[in-house]
Every structure is written in C-alpha cells, then in structure tokens.
C-alpha cells in the first residue's frame, strides 16, 4: 500500500477528504479489494476504540487566590504526635489538682520544687537545689514575703516582751497594746490575702494556658479520629468489594450451570 493511499484511507475514515478526493477514492474502493478490506478493518478498530473510557474521578479542583504563607496548613501527618492528647489531658488534671490542693510543682533551672499550702514556709518545701527563680520574674516574691513575716514576728516578740515588762500598766495602755495587736493581725491578714490573690491569678493563668493547649490538641485528635474513621470506611468498602466478588463468582457458576 502506497503512502498516498494510506493518507487517503485515513482521510476517508475520518471524513476529511475534499469532495473530489472522496469521489475519486470511492471509485477506487469499488475496484480495489485490498483497500476495501483495509477500510472495513480500520472502521471496526475505530468502533472498538470507542469502548476505552477513563475512570470517572471526583473533581474538586478550583483555582483560588494564594493565601498568606503563615496561613499554610501543614499535612496532619506531620503535626500528629501520638500520645500528646493523653499528655495534655494529664497536664489538665494536674493543673486542676494544683488549683484545688494549692500545690506548686515546678521544674526549672533552679531544680525541682514541690510546695503545698498558701503560706509556703521552708518546712513545706521539697527543693533539691537552688532558690526560687520566679522572684526575678516579679511573678511572686517569697523572699520579700518571708522577710515581712519575719519582721512581723520580731514585732510580735517585741510587743510580748514589752507587755511582760509592764504588768502594772493601766487599762488604757493594755487597750492600746490590744489595738496594736489587732492592727498587727489585720496587716498579717492583708499580707496573706495579697499573697493568696497573686497565687490565684498565677494558677488561673496557668490553667487557661493548659486549657488552650488542650483545645489545640483536641482539634488535632479529632482530625486523627476522622482519618481513622476513613480507614475503617475503607475497610468496610473492601468487605463490600469482597461480597461483590463472591456474588460475581456465584453468578458465573450459575451461568455455567444454566449452560
């Protein structure tokens, strides 16, 4: 078959011949068995080609404006750390217990610190090394608090001594001494109250921070759970596919038996 006739056959097959070319080729086909057979064979091939269809995927692709780089969402896989959810829950429980029991557990450059009670004297402290570093941050200043207490204690002792040294003092002096005592107690209460307020604010801030962390982690966990559910869905689909295969097999067996 010549190159010329090949081109004519293709043009004829796809109906891209001029009128004169078509007439001429029709005349040729009526006398050429080879070309007629070729045209018939290739027409059949073209009809077979129509059966090749691509699978139909779900299209969800749309062009969107580029977002700011910091809005980029990382794949969940890279962000997910197993066990972080449990750790966050444990921290939350610990924080709640801390708030209730008025317990301070801290580990920093100065070492491990465990304290209980509002007035944390040295006796309630288990500290393996160093001093309270938070004094430097200005969050709480136990050193000044302690010095104020010590000053108060000294003042109380002085008052007791002076009271003991003047047993015959008049009722007016006694009343004055009582007033001093009352003032002293009021100041002690005020100092303790201030310390409690500061401590409560710190605990509340910590609790808030932990809750934020927990919420963030919860969102990550939920995403992981969704992915997990997707996997189960995949498994379910696999089971359905298995059942389909079985049904198909049954159909084939039944068809064979009918024959």
């Amino acid at each position, binding site marked *: 078959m010549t*190159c010329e006739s*090949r*081109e004519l*056959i*293709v*043009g004829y*097959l*796809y109906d*891209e011949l001029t009128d004169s070319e078509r007439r001429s080729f029709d005349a040729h086909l009526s006398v050429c068995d080879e070309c007629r057979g070729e045209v*018939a*064979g*290739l027409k*059949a*091939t*073209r*009809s*077979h*080609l*129509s*059966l*090749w*269809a*691509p*699978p139909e*995927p779900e*299209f969800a*692709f*749309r*062009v*969107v*404006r580029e977002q700011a780089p910091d809005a980029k969402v990382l794949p969940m896989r890279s962000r997910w750390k197993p066990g972080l959810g449990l750790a966050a829950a444990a921290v939350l429980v610990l924080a709640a217990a801390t708030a209730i029991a008025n317990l301070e557990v801290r580990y920093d450059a100065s070492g491990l610190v465990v304290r209980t009670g509002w007035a944390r004297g040295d006796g309630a402290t288990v500290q393996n090394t160093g001093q309270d570093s938070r004094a430097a941050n200005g969050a709480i200043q136990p050193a000044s608090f302690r010095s104020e207490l010590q000053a108060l204690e000294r003042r109380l002792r002085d008052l007791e001594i002076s009271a003991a040294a003047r047993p015959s003092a008049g009722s007016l002096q006694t009343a004055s001494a009582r007033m001093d005592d009352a003032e002293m107690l009021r100041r002690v209460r005020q100092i303790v109250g201030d310390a409690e307020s500061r401590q409560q604010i710190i605990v509340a801030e910590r609790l808030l921070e932990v809750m934020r962390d927990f919420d963030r982690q919860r969102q990550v966990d939920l995403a992981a759970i969704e992915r997990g559910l997707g996997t189960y869905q995949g498994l379910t689909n696999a089971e359905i596919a298995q059942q*389909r*295969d079985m*049904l*198909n097999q049954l*159909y084939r067996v039944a068809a064979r038996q009918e024959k």
Partner: protein
Amino acid sequence: MASSDEELVARSMGGDLDSFNQLVLRWERPIYALAYRVIGREEDARDVAQETFLRAFRALSGFKGQAKFSSWLYRITLNLCRDWIRKERRTPVSQAPEGIDIIELAGEGTPAESIEQLVGRKQLGRAVSKAMAMLPEEQRTAIILKEYHGLTFQEIADMLDCPLSTVKTRLYQGLSVVRKQLEEAGVKPDSLGK
C-alpha cells in the same frame, strides 16, 4: 446562555477568578481524559490535569488567542504528559482492573443489554487499553487527539508541530497496530454485534 471560552478567558484575564473556574469546570474532564489516555494512570492523570489548569492560569496573560483555548490547554497537558513519561521513564500503562464487577456493570448498561454483552464490552475496552499502551507515544497521541477529542488533522499537526502528512501516517500506523493487537487478543471485527 453560557459564556463562550473566549468570553471567559477575557474576563479571567481581567482578574475574574470565577470565570476561570468556569473554564476549569468545563474542561477538567476532557483534560483529565487526555492525560489518562496518554499516561494511563488515574492518579497521575488527575495531577497532570490540575497542573495544566494551574499553568494555564499563571500563563493566561501570555495567551493571545491565536489558537482555541482548548487547543492551548491540550498543548499544556501533552507537554506535562511528556515530562511525566520522561521523568518517570515509564511507558504508559493499561490500568484496567483485573476482575470485572458484574454488579457495577449492570448499573452502567442500557436496559436492552444483557450481562454477557456488558461483560464483553468491558473486556473489549480493556483489550483496547492494552493495545493502545503498546503504541509509540506519537502514534498514541495522534489517535487520542483525533478519536477522543475530535481535532482536525491540521489542529493535531499544529499542536504536535509536525506536517499534516505525518499526522495521517501516524494515525494510519497506530490504527493498524491496534487492529492487529486486537485480532491477536481474539477480538473479532464484528464483536460489537454491529
């Protein structure tokens, strides 16, 4: 009345993203089908289709309208497919599933078709896919553009940067190889019952 490609392209060039997404919606299936038939892998074809639209969007200002928008998209797609084949050093594959799902087929067929006819049609489609995968890239591309996308010989020649006669020769040779492959696979010319 739906806007023409040219109108949507003009609006897209003016910054109207919705217009461009209308073009995406209109052409995503033909572009995906072209990529799938050239490279033969569903996932990769989808990636190629997405990349085609991204490239088109970025290069929209360079589209002067000498060719049809669809021809421009086809050209981008074919270039990406060529890159994929070169990069992966792969030949296109026939990705038809091993088994044929009769239940699924039953949902696809026309009411007049029996299950046997449906199965036969599916098997034939798979045989065609395998035969097409045997063709050299240029013959396969010529057949795909002509047979499934209805381009004229001249449009194919322009797209592939080759003479008109070369396009016809590639088509003839490609069709002849597919015919031979199908015959060897036991497919008869009248197997479609026509």
